[in-house]
């Protein structure tokens, strides 16, 4: 099969699953195929890297603990020559690991044990994002209540324009461009305040609070902005 431009509306995307547990690979294989994806499997990091290099993959699902090498290591090697979207399978109580994975270049993570629906939502979101050319038109978000146009820099809530400060807009834009995925705190701080303010997370909390307020959102019952404690923020998937 020759590589073709990916279109999320044609779900023939090829997914590589790298996990040493047979049972996990089996149910991922069954579920992914049921959704119309083509699935390749690897039980070790080496095998996975070889498959990713020899065959053109559209998405990689990578376990963080592999018998021959750490998932982080596989990700680092993969990132030296490929920008294929990667979803890491992590364990709970490992916020630091999640941040590390995302900062090394993972596009998203799912915590084991996970539901198939949750994983499929992430897979769809990543393949969709990828279908938007990076130099093309940024997405316009509209759910009937909130309207965000990243080209015209317009934000409206229930038809009324919302006045955002420069930084509030920058945060919304960053999260929206990565909609459905967690953007880590270090990434947000770096992008909005620059490298000298890596520890000013207090600013970030205040900023998120204000942005939520202006979007009519609440941390107690989030509609748009979701906090993943200790990891980062995610715009509705």
């Amino acid at each position, binding site marked *: 099969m020759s590589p073709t431009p990916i279109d999320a509306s044609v779900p023939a995307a090829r997914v590589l699953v790298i996990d040493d547990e047979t049972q996990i690979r089996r149910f991922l294989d069954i579920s992914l195929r049921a959704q119309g994806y083509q699935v390749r499997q690897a039980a070790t990091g080496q095998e996975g890297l070889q498959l990713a290099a020899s065959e053109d993959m559209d998405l990689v699902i990578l376990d963080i603990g592999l018998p021959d090498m750490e998932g982080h290591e596989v990700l680092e090697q993969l990132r030296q020559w490929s920008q294929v979207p990667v979803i890491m399978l992590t364990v709970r109580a490992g916020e630091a690991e999640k941040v590390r994975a995302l900062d090394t270049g993972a596009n998203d993570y799912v915590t084991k044990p996970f539901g198939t629906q949750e994983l499929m939502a992430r897979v769809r979101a990543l393949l969709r994002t990828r279908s938007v050319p990076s130099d093309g038109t940024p997405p316009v978000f509209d759910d009937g209540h909130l309207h965000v146009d990243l080209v015209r820099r317009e934000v409206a809530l229930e038809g009324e324009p919302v006045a955002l400060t420069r930084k509030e807009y920058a945060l919304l834009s960053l999260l929206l461009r990565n909609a459905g995925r967690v953007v880590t705190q270090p990434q947000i701080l770096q992008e909005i305040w620059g490298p000298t303010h890596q520890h000013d997370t*207090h600013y970030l909390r205040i900023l*998120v609070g204000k942005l939520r307020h202006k979007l009519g959102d609440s*941390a107690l*019952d989030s509609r748009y902005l979701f906090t993943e*404690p200790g990891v980062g923020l995610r715009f509705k998937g």
Partner: protein
Amino acid sequence: MITVFLFLAAALVAGRLASRLRMQVIALRAANRHARARQQLGRQLASAAGHGEVAQAGRHALEQAMDVPAWLRIGGDTAAGGRSQPGDTDLAAADWALRHGQPSGRFTDTLAGAQWWFLPLLDGEDRAIGVAGLYLPGAQARLLPEQRQLAEAMVDDIAQAALRTRLVAELEQAHVSNETERLRSALLSSVSHDLRSPLAAMIGSADSLASYGAAMDTADRRALLDTILVEGERLDRYIQNLLDMTRLGHEGLKINRDWIGVDELIGSAARRLQRYQPKVRLELDIPSTLAPIWVHPALVEQAVFNVMENAAKFSPPDAAVQVQARELDGQLRIDVIDAGPGIPDDERARIFDMFYSVERGDRGRHGTGLGLTICQGMIGAHGGSVQALPGRDGRGTLIRITLPLLKPASHDEPDPD
């Protein structure tokens, strides 16, 4: 002449008598001092609780009684005075005495060049458990027998006291081991029960599906699949609790503080709870004016989640679980209130106790109940506290989490724009 002679004889006899008397008085005084010193030492040693205290008390008493600087080492504890300390040669002699269980240094055949005289502290089988040193530099040519006797007797007393404290410590250690053993077996039986029940439901449901699935209608198949899903998630939460418990128990818990909104923490916990229990009713009262707090976000979220999950477990289906957060006197207070059956007064303090939750085992509607113990551990690690109180109108239970509001060492006021 005879008179003179007689006088002389009498004087001689009297002189000798007086001299003997004087000697006797001196000996008596020495014996007295000896007795007093040992009495005093005995009193001080009686109240000493560990090797360190025995060494301190012993050194002090030796110095008083012998009137020279003293030095003592028992196990890893060393007691030294400020006036004079053993040098390298002296320490070599001390080491020798300790290893051979024999005196060394001055007045002995071993390392006689030392300025200290070292006596081993012997246990019942002539093994040295410590060593005492007395500073006796050049001026004094030899040791008086009384000095030797007194020093030996006192060192013997100190050794006895050290042995006694060691025995007490060993008994305490044995007691702790017993407690640990008791907890271990209670945990084990609780864990095997808690892991088995969901597993039994999962295996049974999966087996039914595999064997008879073809003959079932859609609703029955769906019900069995739901059981597998729900029980699997339950199992996952137990295992997470056990892992958290282990982390807390081994002090492997590292607090990585960061800023996080109170609404964000409680919102995240509520979101997770609703995912596991879609029917749960929550009433969240978190003022938007609450400032962000500086804590380990994931740990505090887990602590709040555990309390909310517990409240949901005991709430009647129609009653909501209330969560309120307030800032009071530099502290954050999170109250989680349920309208459940409540907790008897005498048991209220114990619900955080691991034994209580573990030993109750089956009585808990859904297993271990380690959640509250873990919550207390996580909040405690932040310098906060967790209390169980009666519900607002006397019904149900109110669990109160109190966290001190800390700030990082260098913290400027925020300026988001």
